């Protein structure tokens, strides 16, 4: 019972929070703060119990598995931190009660998905999550149709694919129990195997924004408030990964249908490459991060697709890690938006002087995102490469490498465009973000730092959850990574070495000519002797990667969005034709009746 | 004016005219507002006023195919208390250069802006504004063009004494007065020999 209580409590609390906000803003904020604290505390202390009941002749079952609890950790931690972050971030806006209602509903929906043991309850919570996130996507009231409805339509396509799979599974196996489905999956006919797995993969691919179905993601991530986007990209998209992992791995272990895994891996790789390329050319920080999210989710799909032990480990590790660093980055973007009201690269510059803490959190996140030592991103990248190498995916690894190298481009663009470059007078009154916004970012940065040297902290959970997926005896060490060929890297040595050399040279370079080292303003630059006037700003923000664009533009011209749009228009036009049937003329209608009668006679005479 | 402006003649149909024809055409068209003479071969001189100069230029450009604006210069007739603006245009058809001279008052030098006829006239006008102080009505462009922070009278006016100004503003190096070899002076001042290899190449 205690399982379902956590969700019902969240939904109930959501409504209470709504009421509290109607009464008083401060009271509402207190309610939000309370649940942000209570959620992790409750989650990490309660004893899980299974629970089931009957609805409409269907059995709904609830209970965490060792696999889903891994994601639940992410949801709970990120949910709590984003809630805390939201309190100052959203403070100036209206309709807060509505916002938090949906916020908590989507957290509840996610936890519900994770604790659903049957498909129907999974679907119900999936849809609750979808519409609550949709309501937040359109919360700002901007681009509601262009972005919001698009998001809802793609989500619906995914969800309905899942629904179709559910009813088919229900028919084939007589129950909607998830584990029963996977156990009996091997007995299905080939068509059933392919159909059900394809439908489920489609469903989960939409949420995790895999390539042909990613179209909604950039705009939806951009349009929702940043405090929610942290959760959206960090945790909500992981629900797709959760389902995809289940399906992909179960397919592998039960049937050995390698083709699906390969296809998934290739899709993931293409997603990673194209999304990264798009991210490189974005001019809005939120969009950049959104495309980057899609790319990272592509990596995860690759890891799941190859389906070896290292691959799945990499995917799960990256899934958690992505929650952390993309959480930080979206929060940083939110902090910038909160303080300056701008998100476009052409308007932002030099914020490191004003928001150093935000900068260093973002820097840590970016280093992790780019996969550089000494942070934890290296581990996820390393695991993916080693998995690809040992499973001999020659070309996938090249694609992934292309993507992650191109990722440096947007990483630099983000840091430079926002934080570095010349200072401008209009940021003079910008202040560092409020403490409550910084705390989540800094906490997560520490998490990234710790995981960079001691990934074992999270490998512990991953190995136990991988046993659920059929990988028993996953070996892991606190800070040593081993690939399938027995090659190891010692993270402690690597990171200590780096830090020590860094520290030694830091001392040297700081001490040499210390008294004669001056810090000058960013307008004091070597500019062919021309002094930069107060009204000038030489920040580089236009056509940032023009040469790169010239190289890859032949490929990037083709966008799948155009195809989708023309398809949708085509449907509209097609039904416009039918609209002419309803002429509005009574005689025509009478004629229809006669014609219908004639046809019915003919059909009836032959058919009945 | 707009009539003239928009009705451009097809260049291919124009007969190649000599200097006298051009002069006659202009004088016929403008009557007594413009005077002029043929100075020498391929060169026509016209005298216009600030009121007629735009019409003359437009007429010459669109009717007589003087499509090339060569230069706009200025002469300081300080004795007559006048500036003379010289508009130089040239036709690729007849290969004739026309100098159109316009006198403006030196005390209040104002002339019409013609950079809508030729875009690059803007540059000449800004230069004249800065160097002579001639004001062109409605001229757009930064005030500081070549000179920065100039606070004296415009330097190309004849009443501006540039040597005196240089003496006053910049520092003269002693020894500049006679025409002695500089190396001699340096040797004298610092007592240093000219290096051997430098001697080889010295005159």
């Amino acid at each position, binding site marked *: 019972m205690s399982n379902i209580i956590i969700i019902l409590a969240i939904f109930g609390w959501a409504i209470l929070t709504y009421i509290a906000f109607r009464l008083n803003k401060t009271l509402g904020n207190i309610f939000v703060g309370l649940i942000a604290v209570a959620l992790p505390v409750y989650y990490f202390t309660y004893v899980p119990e299974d629970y089931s009941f009957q*609805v409409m002749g269907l059995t709904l079952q609830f209970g965490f598995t060792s696999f889903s609890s891994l994601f639940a950790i992410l949801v709970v931690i990120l949910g709590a931190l984003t809630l805390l972050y939201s309190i100052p971030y959203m403070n100036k806006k209206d309709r807060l009660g509505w916002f938090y209602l949906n916020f908590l509903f989507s957290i509840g929906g996610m936890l519900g998905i994770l604790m659903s043991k049957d498909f129907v309850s999974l679907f*119900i919570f999936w849809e609750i999550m979808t519409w609550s996130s949709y309501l937040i996507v359109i919360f700002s009231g901007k681009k*509601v149709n262009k972005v*919001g409805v698009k998001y*809802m339509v793609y989500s619906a396509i995914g969800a*309905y694919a899942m629904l179709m799979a559910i009813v088919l599974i229900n028919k084939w196996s007589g129950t909607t129990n998830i584990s029963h489905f996977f156990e009996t999956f091997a007995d299905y006919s080939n068509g059933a195997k392919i159909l059900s797995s394809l439908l489920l993969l489609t469903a989960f691919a939409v949420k995790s924004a895999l390539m042909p179905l990613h179209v909604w993601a950039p705009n939806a991530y951009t349009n929702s408030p940043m405090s929610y986007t942290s959760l959206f990209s960090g945790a909500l998209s992981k629900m797709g990964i959760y389902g995809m992992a289940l399906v992909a791995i179960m397919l592998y272990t039960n049937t050995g249908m390698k083709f699906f895994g390969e296809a998934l891996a290739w899709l993931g790789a293409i997603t990673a490459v194209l999304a990264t390329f798009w991210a490189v050319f974005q001019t809005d920080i939120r969009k950049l991060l959104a495309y980057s999210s899609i790319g990272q989710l592509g990596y995860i799909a690759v890891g799941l697709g190859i389906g070896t032990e290292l691959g799945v480990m990499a995917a799960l590790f990256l899934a958690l890690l992505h929650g952390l660093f993309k959480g930080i980055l979206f929060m940083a973007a939110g902090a910038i938006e909160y303080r300056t009201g701008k998100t476009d690269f052409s308007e932002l510059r030099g914020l490191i002087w004003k928001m150093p803490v935000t900068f260093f959190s973002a820097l840590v996140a970016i280093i992790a995102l780019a996969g550089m030592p000494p942070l934890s991103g290296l581990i996820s990248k390393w695991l993916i490469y080693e998995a690809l190498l040992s499973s001999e995916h020659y070309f996938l690894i090249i694609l992934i490498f292309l993507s992650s190298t191109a990722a440096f481009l947007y990483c630099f663009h983000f840091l430079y465009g926002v934080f570095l470059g010349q200072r401008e007078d209009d940021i003079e009154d910008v202040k560092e973000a409020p403490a409550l916004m910084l705390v989540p970012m800094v906490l997560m940065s520490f998490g990234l730092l710790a995981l960079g040297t001691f990934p074992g902290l999270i490998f512990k959970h991953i190995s136990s959850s991988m046993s659920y997926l059929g990988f028993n005896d996953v070996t892991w060490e606190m800070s040593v990574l081993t690939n399938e060929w027995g090659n190891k890297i010692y993270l402690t040595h690597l990171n200590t070495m780096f830090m020590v050399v860094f520290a030694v040279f830091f001392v040297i370079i700081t001490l040499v000519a210390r008294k004669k080292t001056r810090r000058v303003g960013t307008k004091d630059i070597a500019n062919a002797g021309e002094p930069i006037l107060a009204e000038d700003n030489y920040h580089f923000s236009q056509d940032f990667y023009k040469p790169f664009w010239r190289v890859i533009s032949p490929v990037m011209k083709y966008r799948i969005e155009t195809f989708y749009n023309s398809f949708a228009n085509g449907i509209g036009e097609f*039904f416009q034709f*039918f609209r002419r049937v309803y002429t509005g003329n009574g005689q025509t*209608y009478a004629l229809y*009746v006669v014609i219908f009668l004639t046809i019915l006679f003919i059909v009836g005479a032959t058919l009945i | 004016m707009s009539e003239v402006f928009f009705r451009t003649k097809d260049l291919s149909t124009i007969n190649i005219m000599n200097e006298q024809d051009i002069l006659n055409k202009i004088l016929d068209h403008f009557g007594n507002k413009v005077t002029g003479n043929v100075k020498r071969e391929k060169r026509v001189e016209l005298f216009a006023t600030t009121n007629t100069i735009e019409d003359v230029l437009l007429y010459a450009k669109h009717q007589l195919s003087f499509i090339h604006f060569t230069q706009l210069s200025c002469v300081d007739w300080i004795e007559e208390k006048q500036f003379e603006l010289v508009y130089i245009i040239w036709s690729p058809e007849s290969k004739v250069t026309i100098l159109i001279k316009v006198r403006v008052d030196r005390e209040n030098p104002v002339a019409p802006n013609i950079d809508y006829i030729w875009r690059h006239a803007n540059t000449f006008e800004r230069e004249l504004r800065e160097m002579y102080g001639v004001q062109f009505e409605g001229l757009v462009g930064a005030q500081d063009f070549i000179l920065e922070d100039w606070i004296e009278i415009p330097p190309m006016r004849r009443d501006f004494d540039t040597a005196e100004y240089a003496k006053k503003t910049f520092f003269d190096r002693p020894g500049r007065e006679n025409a002695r070899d500089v190396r001699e002076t340096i040797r004298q001042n610092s007592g240093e020999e000219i290096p051997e290899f430098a001697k080889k190449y010295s005159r």
Partner: protein
Amino acid sequence: MVADPILYVALPLLTAFLLPIIGKINKELIRIVPGLLFAFLVYNSIALFSKVSATHTPIIVEIAGWAPPIGINLVYSSFTGFIATIISVLALLVWAYSYKFKKLEFDNSLKYFVLLMLVTAGSIGVILTGDLFNQFVFLEIVALSSYPLVAFYRGRNGAEASFKYLLVGGFASLSILLGIVLIYSQLGTLNMADIAAHIDEMPRNIKIVSFTLLFLGFAIEAEMFPLNGWAPDTYSQAPGPIGAVFAGMTAKAGIYALIRMIYTIFDFSGAFEILLIMGVITLVVSEGIALRQENLKRMLAYSSLGQMGLLMIAFGINTKTAVIAGMLILFNHAVIKSLLFLSSSFLVYNSKDKLIKDAYGMGKKLPLTAILFGIGAFAIVGLPPFSGFWGKLYLLMASADANLLGLIALILAVSVIEIVYYFRVVNGVYFKKSKTEIEVHKPRWNASLAMIILAAAIIVVGIYPNIIYDYLVNAADTLLDKASYISHVLPNLASN
């Protein structure tokens, strides 16, 4: 108090005739008396329905004491009772909603309530009766009272819509009547159970012809494509609550007649397929047309036609799950579409053309109505935890059981289209700025209460559908069990 199926028909008819006289006593009574009547009908339904679902045997009432093959009888089974309950509750809510309707002056309200009662009585009569000709009569009552309701506002458009309805409805009546005549000429009986028992005796040709004629007539009332040309006009021209009445009552009566004919009277197995195919066509075409509608009422009307298509599909599949799904959809359609019609009529209350554009920006001005409309939209596209979801799920499960994979995909694709046009409207209501200044008409407490009850029903059933699940199973059993229907109505026949 007494509870009897006969009261469903008798009381409203009686009250309808007495209402002008009552109005002479006190004008306020004109508004109050129908309410009392509808409240009684609701009580009647609950009492009867609990009895039926407890005993699992239908209540059969023989009018004037004649035994069924000869006399007219009313059959109140789990199936018919369920629909009758929905209709009566809906009638009560519509009354509550239109009590103190602004445009209802004394004369108007008299007409309005009389017609409302006639429609209710007719609809319930169609559902309860066990006699084919009697069903025709009730259908005519429904139709005849619907025509003036459509033209209630006396405008040119209303008259035109009403005339179209009249024209097509005339065809329906004619064709039903012909069908009945044919059957009577062959079998000499009009009782449904009796016909069903002796349908084998009919010559095949005449059976087909009569079936075709009846099918055509009922299909017109059930708004089947392409016979539903009248429907969008009537929905959009009638007063707001009447849209709900059409969607919740008359259309239900039509579809019921169709179902009863196909399930019970005739024994054509191909009929189900025809129903299924026509349902699919109706669904796809109507929803597709709704996609680009600019008129809010018409959009809702086309959506309603689509729902009718869904119903036809559900009953066309002809399995138990499918019938349960059909009942659920019937319930959802009645509740949700009524809510949508009722709330949308406030959103575009003072607008002349009832365009979607005119509802823009109403989210701020009419917060309650807008949120209720939003709930309706969320429910009708089948998002959990609203009741629309269960209907859709069951329909899909039924299609899956019948191996209709393409149908599943089609229904889901149409649902996506539904999402597009409904969410556009909801977004517009909340986030777009209205270009023209339209005076806002706020719902009174009675209207709000009616809508809130509907919304509450949506949410409650959505969260805990078990409360109606058992009734649905009973109803499905009852509908599918043709033999027991015959044996209940004609106990003598079985013993023969």
